[in-house]
């Protein structure tokens, strides 16, 4: 009879008997925790909770016993494979921990579902997604949401062509897509109509469309040999990187309508997003350009290429490779930053959510959880998409 078998009865005791003290303490503590969590559920939990709890208790005792027996055999020299005992221990500790986590997740999910106000969230979900556009009075404009399709196709296809060294074609196609999409969307681009996720996407897309060329310009300008260009680009970048974004939004929101006229608050916000982001893109561009060896520019210039020809033909195509990952990061950042525009009462995703939460009063947690999940889904898909485009690109080479 192997003395480790004691652990079948009380996990840890067998380990103590086999003199693997550390494992003994671990199993004893695990046993206390698992029993404390599992017993109440086993007695009065929901069906799937009881099943998981039972499996958890069984694997706790079986695992502790088998592990202790394995260590005993190793100590007695009956088992020549010294790796077997630690492997047994690892296997069972993973099984037990995994089941415990599963049980807790199940509990958490049940608690979430039991919250009283999900029906309120469900009935406000379209508001969170598209804002006041869902109102019956806007029904005839609903089709205009299709404008997002050419907008995004234009950007993705354009970007890919741009990357595939068909730069000009890519830029033109991307721009055409953005224009067609915007023409379709234009009548509903209005804080009184469009809102929620659709507004966030609109803000982010236009933000990046404007911020990219602007950022390129100040990024290249920052290393220009012409002092006026270099200094003004540097001021631009440093200024907007040093001011909190909320302040930039306020500033534009309040000042710009004096210049552009009333009713231009939304454009002011888009401009604020674009300019703020352009300062970060400028830094990404500068870093990308400076990561190239100096010999590339020197070789270009020695062939008689002008400064801008060297930039367009030689430096940029190589530097862009280095800029892609941080640019994707910046775009994700931009999408999250659009939430700050809710502070000047733009009803984008976060603003729409907050207004629903305030109106309902009793569904705050559910609403904000929903919003967080939406942000996560969008941003995670974006970074996956970028990674897979990169991967496809890398395979080509």
């Amino acid at each position, binding site marked *: 009879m192997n003395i480790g078998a004691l652990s079948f009865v009380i996990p840890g005791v067998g380990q103590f008997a086999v003199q693997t003290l550390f494992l003994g303490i671990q199993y004893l503590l695990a046993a206390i925790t698992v029993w404390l969590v599992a017993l109440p559920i086993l007695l009065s939990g929901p069906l799937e909770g009881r099943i998981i709890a039972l499996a958890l208790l069984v694997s706790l005792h079986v695992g502790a016993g088998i592990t202790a027996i394995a260590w005993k055999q190793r100590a007695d020299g009956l088992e020549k494979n010294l790796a077997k005992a630690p492997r047994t221990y690892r296997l069972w500790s993973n099984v037990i921990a995994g089941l415990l986590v599963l049980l807790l997740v199940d509990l958490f999910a049940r608690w979430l579902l039991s919250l009283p106000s999900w029906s309120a969230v469900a009935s406000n979900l379209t508001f969170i997604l598209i804002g006041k556009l869902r109102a019956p009075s806007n029904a005839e404009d609903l089709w205009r949401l299709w404008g997002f399709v050419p907008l995004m196709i234009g950007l993705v296809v354009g970007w890919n062509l741009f990357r595939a060294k068909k730069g000009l074609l890519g830029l033109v196609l991307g721009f055409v897509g953005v224009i067609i999409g915007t023409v379709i969307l234009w009548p509903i681009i209005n804080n009184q109509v469009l809102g929620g996720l659709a507004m966030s996407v609109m803000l982010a897309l236009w933000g990046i469309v404007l911020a990219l060329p602007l950022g390129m310009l100040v990024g290249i300008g920052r290393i220009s040999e012409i002092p006026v260009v270099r200094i003004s680009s540097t001021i631009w970048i440093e200024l907007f990187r040093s001011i909190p974004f909320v302040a930039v939004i306020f500033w534009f929101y309040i000042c710009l309508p004096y210049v552009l006229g009333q009713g231009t608050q939304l454009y002011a916000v888009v401009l604020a997003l674009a300019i703020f982001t352009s300062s970060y893109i400028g830094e990404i561009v500068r870093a990308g350009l400076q990561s190239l060896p100096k010999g590339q520019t020197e070789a270009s210039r020695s*062939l*008689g290429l002008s400064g801008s020809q060297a930039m367009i033909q030689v430096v940029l195509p*190589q530097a862009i490779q280095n800029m892609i990952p941080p640019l994707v990061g910046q775009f994700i950042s931009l999408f999250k930053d659009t939430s700050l525009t809710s502070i000047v009462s733009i009803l984008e995703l976060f603003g729409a959510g907050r207004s629903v939460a305030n109106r309902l009063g009793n569904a705050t947690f559910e609403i904000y959880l929903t919003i967080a999940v939406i942000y996560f889904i969008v941003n995670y898909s974006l970074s996956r998409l970028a990674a897979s485009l990169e991967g496809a690109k890398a395979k080509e080479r």
Partner: protein
Amino acid sequence: MTQANSTDPIIIAQDVHKYFGQFHALRGVNMTVQKGEVLVIVGPSGSGKSTFIRTINRLEAHQKGTIIVDGIELKEGSNLDAIRREVGMVFQSFNLFPHLTVLQNVTLAPMQVRKMPKDKANALGMELLERVGISEQAQKFPAQLSGGQQQRVAIARALAMQPKVMLFDEPTSALDPEMVGEVLDVMKTLAKSGMTMLCVTHEMGFAKAVANRVVFFDQGNIVEENTPEGFFNNPQHERTKMFLNQIRHA
């Protein structure tokens, strides 16, 4: 050896000074190069050889003195792109464009600068690659070639602008020994075709075979000027003798 036309200077440098901040890198260099002449520049590391030939296509600006290339003085405001078109340069580290194919490396400048149509540029490019012996690699990328092949592409690339002068800055010192010969052969052929060449190189064989003159640099100035035979067999200056001893025993 090519017979240089001694009344037709293409490069005139007079009292050229160059500072890097406080550091006085060129100290009053005087040099006249005739059309068709092949000049070899030698000297210890840090003596200003690279700096000097880089002032000739103004990759470095000089602060004092005059440099006249093909009748155009190099100074603030002169048409640098026009001069650079006439002066080809080959670097120690090749500096090929890694994102372009070998052929595109050669055709980029003619198409961008001379606005040559694509098919004409391709024909010119293939002809030049033929001349340096790598036309069959035209569609590969630089990274797929050996060092010697890359340097020959770099020579073809510089020749594509049909320059009047070629500058070489230690074109073989980054190469494995077995690849040095193939690059020197291309350079010798070029020299014999009548090209004006300024070569920073310590390849004595090359200097003896094609150079009209050897110029010895030390501490930012020319210390000795001589024929190849005179320079290697019968150097005049102490510093030249010391230097030759060093490279012979290296």
